[in-house]
């Protein structure tokens, strides 16, 4: 399987990535043979419902979790199997922003130290230069540098997310993986953080892998959208293609279920899926979606569809989609 690559050499190239976990009672294949690219300065939205493996995929690319097999190429270097020490120089190229910055920020350390810490760890510049950069970063993300001596709990949720962003930017990364970064925020604060992410992405030419369950946010931000179901990528395409003409039956159901803000907007007919997500411990044979698919045929329950490249460059894993 060889998905179409972006015209220039992609920043990230993931191939056949697999990550499983042993849990009581069996094994969960959270990421099950995933392949995709992220171009430089591109925003890729990764969507899917709880338990589809999207967070595990993000953490595995960053090597916060080790993959079972498959390859992760970052800026031309294979990092999927590197040892911890060999991985070190590559680490600074990629950073992560989490949903709950409070959980990822040590509560006993001042905000200034938190932002400086990655630079200390990688011995970037002189101590004085690091301190200057902390001030610069705090201003850049909209925090007041005179608050550097405060602790995380003294900040609001939106401000804490800004701290997380400043810390992620400290080492000038190429790739930012954002895992539900605005899900816990109120709307007015969410807009501030989303705008900040867009600004810094453009300014720093960052590649963004934006993981979210909120399709409206992803449709607002992303250049391309990737849809995951039970550990598999079922569709990848440009934002316009996936949002306006979804091809995979799961994507169609997902997009149709998104509530629309404009009362006069023409709504796609809602495709209401029946049943629950199958247990990831005991996924169905054949296509992972066939048990809930409204158009499944006999072949779907026995044969796993490959992620195929269509004429327009979209990729879909469904026996029934041709083109």
């Amino acid at each position, binding site marked *: 399987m060889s998905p179409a690559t972006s015209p220039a050499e992609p920043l990230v190239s993931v191939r056949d990535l697999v990550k499983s976990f042993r849990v009581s009672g069996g094994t969960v294949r959270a990421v099950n043979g995933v392949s995709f690219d992220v171009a430089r300065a591109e925003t890729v939205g990764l969507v899917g*419902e709880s338990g589809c493996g999207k967070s595990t995929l993000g953490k595995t690319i960053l090597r916060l979790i080790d993959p079972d097999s498959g390859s992760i190429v970052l800026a031309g270097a294979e990092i999927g199997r590197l040892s911890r020490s060999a991985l070190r120089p590559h680490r600074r190229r990629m950073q992560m922003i989490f949903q709950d910055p409070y959980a990822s920020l040590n509560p006993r350390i001042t905000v200034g130290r938190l932002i400086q810490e990655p630079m200390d760890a990688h011995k970037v510049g002189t101590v004085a230069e690091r301190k200057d950069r902390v001030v610069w970063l705090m201003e850049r993300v909209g925090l007041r540098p005179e608050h550097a001596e405060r602790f995380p709990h003294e900040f609001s949720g939106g401000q804490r997310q800004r701290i997380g962003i400043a810390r992620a930017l400290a080492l000038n990364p190429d790739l930012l993986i954002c895992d539900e970064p605005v899900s816990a925020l109120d709307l007015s604060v969410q807009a501030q953080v*989303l705008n900040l992410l867009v600004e810094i992405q453009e300014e720093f030419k960052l590649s963004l892998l934006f993981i979210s369950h909120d399709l*409206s946010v992803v449709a607002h931000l992303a250049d391309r959208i990737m849809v995951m179901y039970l550990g598999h990528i079922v569709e990848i395409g440009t934002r316009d293609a996936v949002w306006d003409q979804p091809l995979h039956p799961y994507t169609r159901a997902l997009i149709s279920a998104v509530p*629309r803000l404009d*009362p006069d907007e023409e709504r796609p007919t809602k495709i209401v899926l029946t049943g629950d997500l199958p247990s990831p411990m005991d996924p169905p044979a054949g296509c992972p979606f066939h048990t809930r698919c409204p158009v499944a045929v006999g072949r779907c329950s026995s044969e796993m569809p490959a992620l195929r490249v269509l004429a327009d460059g979209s990729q879909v894993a469904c026996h029934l989609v041709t083109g």
Partner: protein
Amino acid sequence: MSAILEVRDLRTEFRSEAGTAQAVDGISLLVGRGETLALVGESGCGKSMTGLSLLRIVPKPYGHIVGGEIRLDGRDLLKLPEAAMRQVRGNEVAMIFQEPMTSLNPVFTIGNQIVEAIQTHRDVGKAEARRLTVELLDQVGIPDAGRRLDDYPHRLSGGMRQRAMIAMAISCKPKLLIADEPTTALDVTVQAQILALLRRLQDELEMGMILITHDLAVVAETASRVAVMYAGRIVENGTVREVLRHPRHPYTQGLLQATPHARKAGGTRRKLAEITGLVPSLYDMPPGCAFAPRCPKAQAVCRSTVPTLAVGGGNVACHFPG
């Protein structure tokens, strides 16, 4: 419209060492039979506290309902003795929450809990209550209801637990259902299922519904009228179409422009409008309009005089509505 619920000037306070907060600061609402009214706003705006006040279950010892009228079919619930109020709760007015485990007890089976709810309000035997329970579980779309009856809540998925809670809430065919963020914790396909279920049940039971949510898109798809809340007060109300298409309060306008939604095909990524600053502390409210410190149109009068809905012509509490 025959109103099932009419709320006038409802006031709920929180009293603590920090001072007194007007969590619900003079709210008036009207819900028609079979109609859905959405109460929308951000964290801390008082929308959930309004829901709890309607059932007189504000958290003790800090919360106190200090004024107003809550007329259910003409009868003022605030004047009822507690014993009579217990007959209203769960029977005439029911409430569901974001987290089903708020209402479901983990140590009893789903069936036991619904049977108990039915027997609390209706004079039926155990066998009949059990039969009704199977019917209810079936009605809310729980497959294999006869067997699911004997499951404990933790055995069900999030969506199924939400259905079980809804089954319990409608077990006595309430006139009014208060749904507090009923789909916020759910995935989007399950959210669509639950919203469709609520609409169907509402039709079948001719139930009035108050949908409490932070999500304007859910409002657009579910409610017929909407009241936008800010800092304990209603700042704008009207039909969903009016308010979402032609918002007049600067806060409503700000919320709508801050909401991410898909750009048109081929369009470029635009900046979302931001509402600067933060919601004021309820313990330290500005003297005039609560939104004035964040409002791009605020004038001197906004900082001194609280605008009432009447000021803006009945639907918008703003001195300078758009």
